[in-house]
C-alpha cells in the first residue's frame, strides 16, 4: 500500500469508511433519521474513535495480535465513559444502544490494525481525522435527506416539502438510501 499524503487524505471521499469500505453501517442506518441525531452520532463517534485509535497507536506491536485487540477494545470502553457522561449532560440520549456499541466499531478493532498503524506516524492523525470526517459527512447527508423527506424539517424547523414519506425514518430506508449513496460514490470514485 502506498503510504503517501494522497492516500492519507483519501479517507474523506475516495476511501470513505462507510461508502467505500462498508464499515460502521449500523448507527447510520438506524440512528441517522434526523440531522440532529446524525450530528450527535458524529460527535460521539469522532470522540471515541479519535481518542481510542490515537492512544492505542502507542501500544507496542510486540504484544500478540489477540491481546492487542482486547487492549484496543478496553481502551475504547474506558474512553466511552467520559463521552457518555458528556452526552448525558447534553441530553443526547437519542442514540440509545448504538452509543456504547461505538466502542467496538470497525475503526477501533479492525481498520486500525489493517490501515492506520501501517501509516507513518506523521500521517496517522490527519488520516484518522479525515476518515472520521468521511463517516461524519455520510451520517450528516443521510440524516439530512431522511429528515427532509420523512418529517419535512431540518433540525426541527419546518421546510416546505409537498409530500412526506414517514416510512423513511425506518431502518429499511436507511439501508436503501445508503445503498444508493454508495452507488453514487462509486460512480464518482470508481474502484481501481
Amino acid at each position, binding site marked *: 500500500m502506498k503510504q503517501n499524503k494522497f492516500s492519507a487524505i483519501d479517507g474523506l471521499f475516495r476511501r470513505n469508511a462507510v461508502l467505500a469500505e462498508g464499515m460502521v453501517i449500523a448507527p447510520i442506518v438506524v440512528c441517522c433519521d434526523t440531522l440532529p441525531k446524525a450530528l450527535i452520532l458524529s460527535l460521539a463517534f469522532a470522540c471515541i474513535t479519535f481518542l481510542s485509535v490515537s492512544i492505542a497507536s502507542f501500544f507496542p506491536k510486540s504484544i500478540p495480535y489477540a491481546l492487542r485487540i482486547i487492549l484496543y477494545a478496553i481502551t475504547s470502553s474506558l474512553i466511552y465513559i467520559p463521552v457518555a457522561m458528556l452526552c448525558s449532560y447534553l441530553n443526547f440520549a437519542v442514540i440509545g444502544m448504538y452509543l456504547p456499541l461505538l466502542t467496538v466499531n470497525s475503526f477501533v478493532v479492525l481498520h486500525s490494525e489493517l490501515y492506520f498503524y501501517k501509516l507513518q506516524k506523521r500521517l496517522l492523525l490527519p488520516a484518522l481525522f479525515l476518515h472520521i470526517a468521511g463517516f461524519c459527512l455520510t451520517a450528516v447527508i443521510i440524516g439530512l435527506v431522511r429528515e427532509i423527506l420523512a418529517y419535512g424539517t431540518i433540525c426541527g424547523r419546518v421546510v416546505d416539502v409537498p409530500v412526506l414519506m414517514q416510512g423513511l425514518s425506518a431502518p429499511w430506508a436507511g*439501508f436503501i438510501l445508503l445503498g444508493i449513496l454508495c452507488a453514487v460514490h462509486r460512480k464518482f470514485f470508481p474502484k481501481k
Partner: protein
Amino acid sequence: MWIFTVFLSLLADNLIFTKALGTSTLMAASKSRSNLLILSLMMSLFSVAGCMLTTILYWSIPLLRHESVMVESLFSPILYTAVISVIYIVVLLLLYALSGKWFSTIKKYVHLSAFNCAVMGVMHLCFAPERFLTGSFVPTDFLGMSMPVMDARTVYGSLLFGIQMGLGFLLASLFLLAVRKRLYAPEVPAAFRGFPAILVYIGLLSMAIHAITV
C-alpha cells in the same frame, strides 16, 4: 403453522433486518457456505457464552446489581468487553489445542466474530435497561412461542436469547447467500454491483418485515 411463527419471529427480532447490527460480518459470512456455517456458529457461540457469563457475573458480584452499573450503561461496555475478551482467549486456546493444522484457517473467523457490533448488541439487548427499570421483569417469548422463558437474569433465559439471535443471523446469511451471485452478476449496473446492491437487497427484505410488524 408453528414453523411460520418461528420464521417470522426470527425475522421480526433479527439483528440485521431490524437493527442493522453485524452487516459487515454478514457480508463476510455470505461469501461461501463454509464461511456462512462457521461464522454463524462463532457468532452464536460468542452471543450465548457472553450472555450466560454476564448473567453468572450479575448474580455472583453484588456490585453489578447496583442500578447505576447495569441500568445507566456507563460501565456496561467495559463489562461486556471484559466478558468477550475472556471468551475470546478461551476459544482461541481451545481451538489451538484441538484443531491443530486448521487453527490458522479458523482463527480469522474467531477474530471477526468476537469484537463486533452484533455480539455486543446481543448483550446490550439481553440486559436492556427497560428490563430492570420497571422493577418487574417483562419476559419475552422464545421464537415467537407464548412461553415466557426469556428472563435474561437467568442462565437458561440468556442461553435461549443468544440462540435466538444466532439463528436470526444464520437466517439472514442464508437470505443473502441465496442471491449473492445475482447481486454480483454483470447485468447489475456497475455502480450497484456488489456492496450497494446488497444494502438495497437487505433494505427491501427489511421493508417486507416492517410491513408485518407495523
